[in-house]
């Protein structure tokens, strides 16, 4: 990837994130109604989008974003009301902006149709703006009320802003002068000291590089985000520290150490800007103030304004939180996922190498060596966990993306549906998150289309007219679970069965199969119970694809439903695709790996332990446990030992045993995918290379457990 492409990637990621934010706020507004905070946030998103487009030199996007921004500027100033119509228009604008960005990134010009759509939207925005201006004239009379509202926005607090502009600020077309002028609009610059110390001698300087910085004492009633916002466009190009009213000496000391002038010179500037007093500086220099637990000290108090200091102290809790959250944002780092993958792969290889080393150490019998390898193993395990965590992202962003979808699809079908989300902070491997979006979309579309009834039908059934769709995520025994629950009509098991018989998927039977089994039919290819084929779903391609996609992620999907009350789809996924903790077993001369998280226990059986000669079953503490003979299944039969072992595994509700020859112990491994040629292979999900270079197959427990259940069902016509 060239440097240029990398920058391009950053722009792309940033713009899509911003568009997502923009949309999120709009949808929030639609349900909760617009308030000052959300309008501000919306404006900021539009403003930043314009800035991003500007930096990427996408003039078309800048122009359009500018109109959107102007409208929001009016709304922010209270001169324009955000009506539901405007929200709808803005949502369309968001789509148009997305299209414009796509075109720009693809280096192509928008087509005539797109230009026309853009023009229409632009006109709608301008119309809304005109209406706003008319309202402005009316509201001019009530300007007094506005001033009163402004006054209660928050007490004035004293901040310290330290900024060093980066060398490329001018070259990027940015000028600090308007920035400072804008800062003045947010509050009062009490003191400002320009740091000129970085200026080289004239003949040595590059006049187009920026060498300046400022230490600013700033009074404002704005919050941190608003103040930092002023520096938004130079943010990438500068070193910015904003110290809040409750910043302590420790923060100042840290700032001083970090400033490029060096601690002593920086202290002079901070002193001149009133960020610190001479006695405090003395304390710091003696190293007294940096001890932990020292109470925070208000910057305002330093200026000798004790009363203001107390006022600030009462505000501290709120500010703290704000500070914490902004500190959190500041500590994020955007990393190319390719680099993470490489790291995870390397850590995985390291774990494999360690296994080889362990075996060698065990053979040598050297206790020192054994002890050291044990420690190393633990550390490799921790490194692996940390590496994997890097890939973990919260699923909430993906969930929230569906809000828009639910809204649009609901509207199209004339259904009022609310999407509620819980467990959005549950983490999952990014690769998995990306891959569940399609199946999720499918299930959600199904729920809206077939599950949730129209308002009229709902009212007739005594339900609230607004339908609810609930997305929920949680962790459960090494799996990640997503539930998609609707409060719709539910699935009629009898109808599903009738349909399956009609389609020839099952035979008409004397007895009626269990509900689980009937619902499982929904995932069969070519199955659809929809009476009408709509634009959205019910074309008979659907849940079977969902099932395939989820199984490709080593996951499982099932459905529960209660007629009249609703349907719940449950998707169960492994936490990560890259590495598993496994248990190594020997089958014949080969090795297989059972994912540890799906393993329940191991037991040794003799030839007399089978309870049924006709099928593979043992008596496990009074319960019937069906098992699969792996040697027989994979044709790996060696000379049978008298004693064999059963590994008991569980996936979801399915429990079964695997008959193996040897139990070789726990084994941590990275999964290497099998080539396309092995696509049809059942019961094996991947492979791994052992420390000695041999290959081990990773068993696909969901598939094996499913097969056992099927065998049992075909023998007895009912599930186990």
């Amino acid at each position, binding site marked *: 990837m060239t440097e240029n492409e990398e920058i391009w990637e950053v722009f792309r990621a940033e713009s899509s994130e911003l568009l997502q934010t923009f949309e999120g706020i709009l949808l929030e507004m639609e349900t909760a109604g617009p308030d000052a905070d959300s309008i501000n946030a919306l404006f900021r998103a539009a403003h930043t989008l314009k800035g991003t487009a500007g930096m990427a030199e996408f003039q078309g996007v800048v122009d359009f974003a500018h109109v959107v921004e102007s409208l929001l500027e009016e709304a922010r100033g209270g001169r324009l009301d955000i009506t539901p119509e405007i929200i709808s228009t803005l949502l369309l604008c968001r789509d148009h902006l997305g299209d414009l960005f796509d075109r720009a990134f693809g280096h192509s010009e928008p087509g005539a149709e797109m230009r026309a759509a853009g023009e229409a939207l632009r006109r709608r925005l301008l119309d809304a703006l005109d209406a706003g201006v008319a309202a402005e004239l009316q509201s001019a009379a009530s300007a007094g009320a506005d001033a009163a509202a402004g006054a209660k926005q928050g007490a004035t607090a004293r901040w310290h802003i330290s900024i060093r*502009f980066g060398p490329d*600020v*001018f*070259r990027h077309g940015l*000028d*600090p*002068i308007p920035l*400072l*002028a804008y800062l*003045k609009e947010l509050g009062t*610059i*009490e*003191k*400002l*000291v*320009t*740091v*000129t*110390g970085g*200026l*080289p*001698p*004239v*003949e040595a*300087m*590059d*006049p*187009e590089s*920026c*060498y*300046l910085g*400022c230490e600013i004492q700033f009074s404002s009633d704005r919050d941190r985000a608003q103040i930092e916002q002023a520096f938004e466009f130079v943010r990438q190009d500068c070193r910015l520290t904003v110290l809040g009213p409750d910043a302590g000496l420790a923060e100042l000391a840290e700032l001083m150490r970090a400033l490029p002038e060096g601690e002593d*010179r920086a202290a*002079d*500037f901070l*002193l*001149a800007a009133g960020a610190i007093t001479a006695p405090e500086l003395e304390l710091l220099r003696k190293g007294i103030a940096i001890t932990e637990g020292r109470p925070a000290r208000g910057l305002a108090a330093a200026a000798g304004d004790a009363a203001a200091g107390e006022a600030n102290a009462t505000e501290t809790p709120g500010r703290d939180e704000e500070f914490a959250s902004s500190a959190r944002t500041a500590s994020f780092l955007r990393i190319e996922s390719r680099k993470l993958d490489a790291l995870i792969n390397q850590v995985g290889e390291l774990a494999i190498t360690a296994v080889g080393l362990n075996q060698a150490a065990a053979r040598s019998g050297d206790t020192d060596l054994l002890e050291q390898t044990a420690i190393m193993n633990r550390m490799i395990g921790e490194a692996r966990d940390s590496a994997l965590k890097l890939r973990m992202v919260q699923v909430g962003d993906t969930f929230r993306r569906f809000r828009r979808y639910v809204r649009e699809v609901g509207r199209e079908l004339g259904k009022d549906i609310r999407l509620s989300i819980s467990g959005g902070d549950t983490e999952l491997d990014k690769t998995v998150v990306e891959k569940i979006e399609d199946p999720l979309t499918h299930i959600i579309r199904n729920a809206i289309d077939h599950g949730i009834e129209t308002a009229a039908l709902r009212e007739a059934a005594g339900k609230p007219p607004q339908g609810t769709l609930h997305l929920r995520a949680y962790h459960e025994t090494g799996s990640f679970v997503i539930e998609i629950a609707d409060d719709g009509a539910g699935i009629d098991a009898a109808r599903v069965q009738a349909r399956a018989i009609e389609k020839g998927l099952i035979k008409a039977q004397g007895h009626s199969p269990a509900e689980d089994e009937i619902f499982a039919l929904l995932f069969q290819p070519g199955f659809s119970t929809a009476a009408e084929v709509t634009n959205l779903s019910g074309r008979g391609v659907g849940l079977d694809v969902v099932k395939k996609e989820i199984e490709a992620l080593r996951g499982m999907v099932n459905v529960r439903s209660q007629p009249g009350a609703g349907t719940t789809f449950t998707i169960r996924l492994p936490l990560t695709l890259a590495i598993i903790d496994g248990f190594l077993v020997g089958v014949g001369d080969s090795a297989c790996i059972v994912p540890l998280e799906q393993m329940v226990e191991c037991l040794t059986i003799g030839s007399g332990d089978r309870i049924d000669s006709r099928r593979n079953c043992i008596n496990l503490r009074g319960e019937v446990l069906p098992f699969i003979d792996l040697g027989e299944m994979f044709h790996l039969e060696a000379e049978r030992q008298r004693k064999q072992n059963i590994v008991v595994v569980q996936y979801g509700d399915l429990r079964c045993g695997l008959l193996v020859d040897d139990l070789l112990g726990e084994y941590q491994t990275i999964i290497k995918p099998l080539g396309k040629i092995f696509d049809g292979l059942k019961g094996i999900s991947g492979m791994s290379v052992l420390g000695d270079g041999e290959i081990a197959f990773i068993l696909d427990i969901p598939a094996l457990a499913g097969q056992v259940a099927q065998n049992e069902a075909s023998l007895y016509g009912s599930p186990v």
Partner: protein
Amino acid sequence: MDCRIVEETESLVRIEGELTVYHVARLRDELLPLVRDRAGLSLDLGDLTVLDTAGLQLLLALKQEVRRQDRELAFRRHSPAVLKALDLFGLAGFCADPLELSAEESALFPFAYGTGSHPEYTPGRAAITKR
């Protein structure tokens, strides 16, 4: 618009136009030899219609250069663009030139800070007179 040196005498150099990032490289090359060799030189800034941070930075660098040689480079006849930059950046004290503000200018540029001593130039002080 361009930026150029329009007058050059033994004691005064006058520049005119827009001193911005687009012209700073050339102006540096043109101004450096002029300010370097002369004692008691003034820069007449009265005809600078635009001054951006890059332009301001060049002026500061020139001033500092002359100070290194224990001489002074005075700025004279500050145009509103120059006043605005000095006011915002609090550099009136650092530059230590007498400033003459019209009534209109003193309303626009309050010089609320940065008129005294500067860490990089402790003798700094701006003598502001209002016309």
